[in-house]
């Protein structure tokens, strides 16, 4: 079991018909048991990378370069082989929790289902374990567990998703924008839940536009803009003493640090450097 769980080098994603590069050549690696956060604003390509990793990239997009997941390179694998990894080795937490849950099935059953079919537990046993998983996340399994997804709030549905993540044997969890659309206090509890995942021995790759989440999760981070990684390294180092002007601008732009807009010259200089994938059309298209 080698130290590096995931090793990506010069992965690039482009749209098939007109070959527009959406993600330039990106390289980073994730160590087992250590969280990694991909930071970037809308249209920087971070969600595309998450989809490429887990093999759910849209049909009209193509990925090149190498994604070594615990050894083998996933880029060449067929859909069927990629699917074997789902739930068993890796797991993608989607953005909208309520839409990701089956509207006509009680939430506790959607958790116990994984225990039954992936961990081979008996139905009664699986239900009991699912109940404990849900109550560990601060919900009452008897009352909330029996509800349907539409009866639960956004935050509660998200906890069900995390319970499912814990239920799966997968060791590598990709969380796509876990704090999107959440209030300040709900955001803190969501981050605590992610930390809970890491403590349970899962390796977490978090995709977010929220700097505070990166700081709280720790581990390594990579800052992306216009489909390229502009800076990466340990969370404290990058956030406290950023090297790249864009990262500095991004940090100063958050309300806690005075909310200074990123100076125009910083953005324009980066755009000229990667004119093939200027952020202009990407910002509009996402």
């Amino acid at each position, binding site marked *: 079991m080698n130290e590096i769980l995931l090793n990506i080098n010069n992965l690039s994603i482009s749209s098939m018909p007109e070959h527009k590069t959406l993600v330039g050549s990106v390289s980073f690696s994730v160590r087992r048991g250590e969280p990694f956060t991909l930071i970037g604003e809308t249209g920087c390509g971070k969600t595309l990378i998450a989809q490429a990793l*887990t093999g*759910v990239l849209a049909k009209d997009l193509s990925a090149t370069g190498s994604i070594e997941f615990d050894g083998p390179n996933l880029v060449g694998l067929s859909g069927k082989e990629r*699917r074997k990894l*789902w*739930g*068993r080795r890796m*797991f*993608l937490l*989607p953005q*909208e929790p309520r*839409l*990701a*849950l*089956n*509207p*006509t*099935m009680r939430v506790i059953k959607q958790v116990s*289902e*994984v225990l039954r*079919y*992936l961990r081979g537990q008996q139905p009664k046993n699986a239900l009991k374990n699912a109940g404990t998983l849900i109550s560990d996340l601060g919900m009452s399994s008897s009352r909330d567990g029996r509800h*349907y997804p*539409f*009866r639960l*709030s956004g935050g509660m549905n998200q906890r069900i998703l995390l319970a*499912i993540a814990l239920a*799966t044997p*997968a060791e590598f969890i990709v969380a796509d924008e876990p704090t999107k659309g959440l209030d300040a206090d709900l955001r803190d509890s969501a981050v605590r839940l992610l930390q809970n995942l890491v403590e349970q021995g899962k390796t977490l790759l978090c995709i977010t536009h929220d700097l505070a989440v990166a700081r709280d999760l720790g581990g390594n981070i990579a800052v992306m803009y216009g489909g390229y990684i502009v800076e990466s390294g340990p969370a404290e180092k990058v956030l406290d003493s950023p090297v790249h002007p864009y990262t500095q601008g991004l940090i100063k732009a958050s309300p806690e640090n005075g909310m200074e807009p990123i100076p125009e010259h910083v953005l324009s200089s980066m755009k000229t450097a990667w004119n093939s994938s200027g952020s202009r059309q990407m910002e509009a298209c996402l």
Partner: protein
Amino acid sequence: MGEIARILRTHLFHGVAVGLVVASLSFVVVNLTRGDTALEIAIARHGTALTNEALVEQIRIEEKLDQSLWIQYTRWIGHAFTFDLGRSLVSKEKVADLLWYHFRHTLVLSVAAMLISLVIALPWGIFCGIFPGGSFDNISGLVSSALVAVPHFVTGILLILALSIKLQWLPVAGFFTSRHLILPAATLGIGLAAFSSRVVATAIVDVRGALFYQFARMKGLAEARVLLGHGIKNASIPVITFIGLQTAHLLDGVVVVETLFAWPGIGKLILDSILARDIPVVQGAGLLIGLMYVAVNASVDLICIVLDPCRRDPEAIR
């Protein structure tokens, strides 16, 4: 449970409203329009040759047609609520018995048609749903539009031409043996199947494209487990709603098919009684068809409530 009570209340209200509208409509329309009802009935009973002034007057008094319209109307409404629908002006039979006899035949025909339509539509729809966009899917789209475009009676005629006349397999019309049931039921069934197969296909395509379906795959479940556990139940809700609505619209087709195949159902009864201006039968049959229609709509709503928890709960955050 509040939701179910509310549904029952609204449909009960519809039932009463439909009943009243049918009764009053046929009453008002007949009496206000041309022709003297008593004369029409005399002709219907004894043929034009024997009808003379005295006979018409005798019928008018006998059937109390001379009383003011308002009294006749209230008398009928009063009876309707006590389920005494009066007697047919033409054959003097009790309307209730007439209705029951004809209703049973329509029931047999409708059930047979529903079964045939399901037998055709479900496999066809499911296949198109699982392999969307393929050549089979496009062709069956056109075929189903064609079948929908062809009126019931034309399908019936084509079947008669093919099966009864050319191949001599089946009797043309009438109601004696079960073999007589095949043609009318098939005619109705094909018409229904055309549309429901498309609904089944779209329902499956929508469900398999939904985010929760993709997520179920991501959980590591095998495709069969995902289809059974998550697909079927969610796809069945729109299908059952449509099939329910379709049973309601079945009544429209029944009238036409029963006339074409001389099938002694409720549709044929109401048509003949309208042409013979036999008001009590028209009112009775209209009332029954209206209430059947409402009953089917109500049961469809209830089935949907049971199947779709989201509708069962008014507080649901859509």
